């Protein structure tokens, strides 16, 4: 035993100070967070300035761009840039697919949480997760090779239609709606259910009068998130909707959305030309809409009661 060496000198000393690593680590993760802010700001600024060029540089009236139904950018004498048919198409497929997916998704969620909490969830949860995993082009391909001929033969029209796009999108947003709605229903306190059942209400009465109203803000959030996804989906819709420039007059008419026109024409137009710039304006519209969806979701979650 060496008693003469004081404790101070027997300590194992590290040459580099621990605090150096501390500062470095903190800088590292802060930088990662900053990169994300940078990316969001850059996307907004770049797409914003590029999308506004149509109106500032090319002198197209923004009112005309949004409200006119005449889209003919290749007309040499008087090219027309009215994007209303596409804006209408985007909103139409979004709302229609939400109309289909919302009852199915919320119904599926209620089945998982209220009707068969034990085995229902075990079956449906993996199903939902697998549905999320199917890539959008595969949905588009199946829509193209199964739904389009089916609708052409059984419903009418060309098969490429608003209806086909709606069906494909409904299936695509179904898992989004279902999983968030399931979380919403599952997070309701059990006391709500028990209280209602103890008063003699049937299960359906409990679901309809107590549980759905209590979860309604979150259920709406689920639907809005689904709509946001439907609004921005490009390739699957593009493959089945027909991509025409005119306003559809019925649900079995071919149509086009903002995303499908961008997908279709971005590669064919010259960078910097007026037609190309109008595509960037449509991209800007998509960006603005996704901000709008977030604001709606924020508003809904502020209203959340439970």
């Amino acid at each position: 035993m060496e008693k003469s060496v004081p404790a101070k000198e027997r300590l194992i000393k590290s040459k580099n100070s621990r605090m150096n690593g501390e500062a470095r680590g903190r800088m590292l993760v802060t930088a990662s967070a900053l990169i994300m802010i940078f990316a969001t700001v850059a996307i907004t600024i770049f797409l914003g300035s590029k999308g506004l060029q149509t109106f500032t540089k090319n002198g197209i009236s923004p009112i005309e761009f949004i409200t006119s139904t005449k889209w003919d950018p290749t007309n040499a004498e008087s090219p027309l840039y009215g994007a209303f048919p596409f804006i209408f198409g985007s909103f139409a497929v979004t709302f229609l697919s939400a109309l289909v997916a919302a009852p199915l998704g919320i119904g599926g969620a209620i089945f998982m949480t209220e009707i068969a909490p034990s085995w229902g969830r075990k079956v449906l949860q993996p199903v939902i997760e697998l549905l999320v995993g199917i890539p959008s082009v595969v949905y588009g391909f199946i829509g193209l090779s199964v739904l389009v001929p089916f609708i052409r033969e059984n419903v009418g029209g060309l098969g490429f239609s608003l209806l086909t796009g709606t069906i494909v999108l409904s299936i695509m947003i179904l898992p989004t709606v279902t999983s968030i709605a399931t979380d919403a229903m599952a997070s309701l306190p059990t006391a709500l259910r028990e209280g209602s059942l103890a008063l003699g209400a049937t299960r359906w009465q409990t679901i309809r009068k107590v549980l759905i109203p209590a979860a309604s803000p979150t259920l709406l959030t689920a639907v809005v998130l689904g709509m946001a996804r439907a609004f921005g989906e490009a390739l699957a819709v593009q493959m089945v909707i027909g991509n025409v420039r005119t306003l559809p007059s019925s649900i079995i008419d071919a149509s086009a959305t903002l995303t499908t026109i961008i997908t279709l024409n971005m590669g064919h137009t010259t960078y910097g030309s007026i037609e190309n710039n109008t595509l960037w304006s449509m991209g800007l519209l998509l960006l603005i809409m996704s901000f709008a969806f977030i604001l709606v979701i924020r508003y809904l979650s502020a209203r959340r009661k439970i």
Partner: protein
Amino acid sequence: MNSKTADRIATAIFGLIAFIIVAILIGLFAYILGNGLKHISIEFLTTPSSNVLGGSGIRDQLFNSFYILFLTMVIAVPLGVGGGIYMAEYARPGKITNLIRSFIEVLASLPSIVIGMFGLLMFVNLTGWGYTIIGGALALTIFNLPVIVRVTEDAFNSIQGDQKEASLSLGVTHWHTIKHVLLPSAFPSILTGVILASGRVFGEAAALLFTAGLSTPRLDYGNWNPFSDRSPLNIFRPAETLAVHIWSVNTQGIIPDVVEKSAGASAVLIIAVLIFNLSARWIGSKIHKKITATK
């Protein structure tokens, strides 16, 4: 109507809805695998594709898909995990943190085509690279970052507080605790999340259309010099991925066997996504068992 009858009808309807959801999935998988599996062969996977002739394969597209996925993850995982650690450990509740959270939310909700357009502006035109693999990987990084940040943050938040407190009370600094105590505990969840995100990246097409392009140069698989034009490893070459290929043969291609080729390619894509899904679960639980005491 009697309230009991109404209850029974409602139960039946909910059962029907659940059945419809399951039927949709089974129908989709049966169609893709039923039609696609018979077109998958070694030859299909190893011959290059053609824009005009029938009988082509998906060799280059398959390689490009995996290569872009790999590059994306190399960039996105460190950044995303870093961002997630910042949000979970360093961000103080307040206005700035809320702002960052909103930014992540915006980034997560951007349509992939918008990210593709930004990529076109930034990584294709501004840099002057043209359609490149690295451009595609960077666009997919933006698309993927919010997912990994969220996964990391959730993983960190779900760790028991006493692990962190025990480490800090031993005099270990915060960063050292994160690196040696929290990160290993969070690792299984992060890995699962990253593999699931890989499945999403693998099938993504809209963000790649305008960044990695619709063509692949003639590749020479004997040439592994990453700076050579014909090398598959060159990150400054255009690259069509499998998902983009399915889209382009269906909408712009003129090959005679479109349906067979896209059915085969869709099946490959679905199988890959399935493997990602299953392995994520399997690896996650395996590592969790290994590094914790749970049996």
